[in-house]
């Protein structure tokens, strides 16, 4: 692999750093090389250097839009909970559903998976491949287990006769949890691919980069879940 050492190119760890060449309104290209790598090591081109940074920027930007989706649903949730037009019938009123106990389980599992992912990422940075392979596999399994926990929680509620349209709270519960699950499945697909690459010992610079980006996404999904969990069952 000619590009196995790409990570040696110095890239600023912050999301927006590496690509921003040149001070604003600078006088000429002479000044602009001071921030970014001006003289490329032999065998490198500009494309190699901006690649990891662009994925990182892209992920942050994508997370901003996902955040906006859940922010707007939160506002809908609060509006419906506090100021929806209501009459005396049960179906129109906001009745908080009782939290299925399985959610504690899935919350714990997801938190744990974030932890193992972080350890896996660090192991990869130190090039301890065996440890990375183990941890990334565990993370994937925990991700699947989380989805299993969510399905169990849905079935628990369904068994009690609480469905999507039963009352506003259950509507939002099913909606928010399934939207979160759909987004999480995207991360899970990436994790499964990475695990396959890891177990077949095919971790190159592209995969290292993908681990970093997926970790970002996964931690975001973890945080998002904690937020939704608190919103749905602890926010009054």
């Amino acid at each position, binding site marked *: *692999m*000619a*590009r196995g050492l790409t990570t040696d190119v110095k890239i600023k760890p912050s999301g*927006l750093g*590496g*690509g*921003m*060449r*040149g*001070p*604003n*309104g*600078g006088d*000429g*290209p002479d000044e*602009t*090389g001071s921030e970014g790598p*001006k*003289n*490329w090591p*032999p*065998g*490198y*081109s*500009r*494309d*190699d250097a*901006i690649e990891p940074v*662009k994925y990182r*920027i*892209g992920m942050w*930007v*994508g997370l*901003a*839009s*996902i955040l*906006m*989706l859940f922010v*707007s*649903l939160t*506002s*809908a949730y609060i*509006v*419906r909970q506090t100021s*929806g*037009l*209501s*009459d005396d*019938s049960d*179906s*129109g*009123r*906001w009745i908080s559903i009782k939290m299925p106990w399985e959610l504690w389980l899935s919350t714990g599992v997801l938190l744990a998976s974030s932890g193992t992912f972080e350890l896996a990422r660090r192991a990869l940075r130190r090039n301890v491949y065996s440890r990375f392979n183990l941890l990334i596999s565990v993370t994937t399994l925990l991700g699947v287990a989380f989805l299993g926990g969510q399905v169990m929680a849905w079935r628990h509620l369904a068994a009690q006769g609480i469905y*999507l*349209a039963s*009352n*506003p709270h259950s*509507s939002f519960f099913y*909606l928010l949890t399934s*939207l979160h699950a759909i987004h999480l499945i995207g991360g899970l697909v990436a994790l499964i691919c990475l695990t396959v690459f890891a177990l077949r010992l095919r971790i190159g610079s592209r995969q290292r980069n993908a681990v970093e980006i997926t970790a970002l996404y996964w931690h975001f999904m973890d945080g998002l879940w904690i937020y939704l969990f608190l919103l749905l069952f602890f926010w009054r």
Partner: protein
Amino acid sequence: MAEVIHPTHGEIHRHEPPKGFIRKYIFSLDHKVIGIQYFFLALFSVLVGLVLSVLMRLQLAWPNQEFGFLKVIFPTAAESGTISPDLYLSLVTMHGTIMVFFVLTTAPQGGFGNYFLPIQIGAADMAFPLLNALSFWTTFLALGVMMMAFFAATNTIGPIGGWTGYAPLSALGERAGPGQGLGVILWISSIGLFCVASLLGALNFITTMLNMRARGMSLMRLPLTCWAWFTTAVLSLLSFPVLLAAAILLIIEHQAGTSFFIPGGEYVSGKLLEEHKGGSPILWQHLFWFFGHPEVYIAILPGMGLTSHILATFARKPVFGYRAMVFAIFAIGLLGFFVWGHHMFMSGMDPRTAIMFSLITLTIGVPSAIKTFNWLGTIWGGQIRFTAPMLYAIGFVSLFVSGGITGLFLGQTSIDIPLHDTYFVVGHFHLIMGVAAIFGIFMGTQFWFPKMFGRMMSESLGKLHFWLTFIGVNCIFIPMHIMGMMGAPRRYSTHYNLQYLSELPPLTHFVSYAAFFTAAVQLIFVVNLFWSMFKGPKASDNPWEATTLEWTIPSPPPHDNFEGIEPEVYRGPYEYSVPGASKDYSMQTEPDEAVRSDG
């Protein structure tokens, strides 16, 4: 994996174009091909939307008259050859939806932005070419689904709830009227798909602009078009998720019988609603307009950027107040997120809230005025070349002013309340969001056509088209303000049965004739476009003597834009008529020694 030799910086690093028709022109990853695909998608959509508007004007001027051709184009919806109120409402809905989403949102950003953002910043392509293609094909799918909505009901051509799709009518299904069942499902699914496509596009634009700029292309050396596309992308990124959330809620409400939007105890078509209880119809409006207002700027900002660009180019002067222009674009984008309530003054709102929305709305007048005066300052004392793109740009400024002035009326609650549901609003938003943004598309086409297709468009046809269209649109939309002040309600399929509007028919006829005229002269544009594509005179690399990077490369550009050499940028984007320079324009890539006349 084969060993790849990577040349060092400064050497040539070419990307070969893909072989084969399908990879090259259909499922292409090249931002230029995708830009042209977006352009033609918008061209198709604008023609559909135009036909719908002509049919509306036909009904308004000659209500309930029989027209034989209607039986041919709508065999079931207009069986008797007349346009029923239901059919009229579906025309309104589909016209608005197609124009806003598939024309005003796609052409300026997806079309020109895709094609020229990477070139103007000196990149070989967008940051994520595959995502770019995915974004286009999702838009294409969304358009296909929207087209299916035309056939969803027998006596309409789609949903009848307007492009705003207000709940509860949009959530009730067939009970709320024809086209509100399957029609709404297809309509809202299409919008949901469109949201996803726009989000992917916005992500790509932002990353590209932040990360892919060439050496020396600092932020304050970017052409104003790039700033406009960037701000538009940020607006898309933050507003389309909200529409997506609203769309998801609406689909669930429509299909699963939840109660987000539909209040209980309502009678619809004589029947009591039973399965829905306690929802808030205002919630839909909040979500929709939180998207809807930034959407207005998504449509107009690229046109503003392009206007600055073209005015400077043909006035042979730098843009007046470049930094102020950049900050004005930002200010408009930012303020655009806090004014959605001004669409809802009629929906019942606490007066204190309304005052806040009103104040912030009027504040947008400040950056808008900065832009307008800077445009005037740019052409002030310039050696103006009245080319067709320049005429469109001047027309844009004119339309922006005449459409924007009425925004100051409508932004105030006390004036908005009597005018809100009248033709005053129709005239206002068509001038500023519809026609001004369309003029942005015209000027972009005429200005960049030589680069995109390697041939010049006909200047005389372009000028003819400009004058006829400019006169035509003013004849359509200025009288609408008068109709609105007379109290003519919008969305009605006829006004002739309203006694207090008995004076209206001559004006209505005039507007309809103006609309037919304006629609007809668009043929000039279409003919000019296709004729020039094949028969126009060959364009040089820089036919307008402009300064930005797209004019440094061949017309049309090669697959990898700069043929593998990263350009170096030495100066700002609008250095026209620089004292002491050898010619009246200094390209961004020319070092100082090359520019000076004595050197």
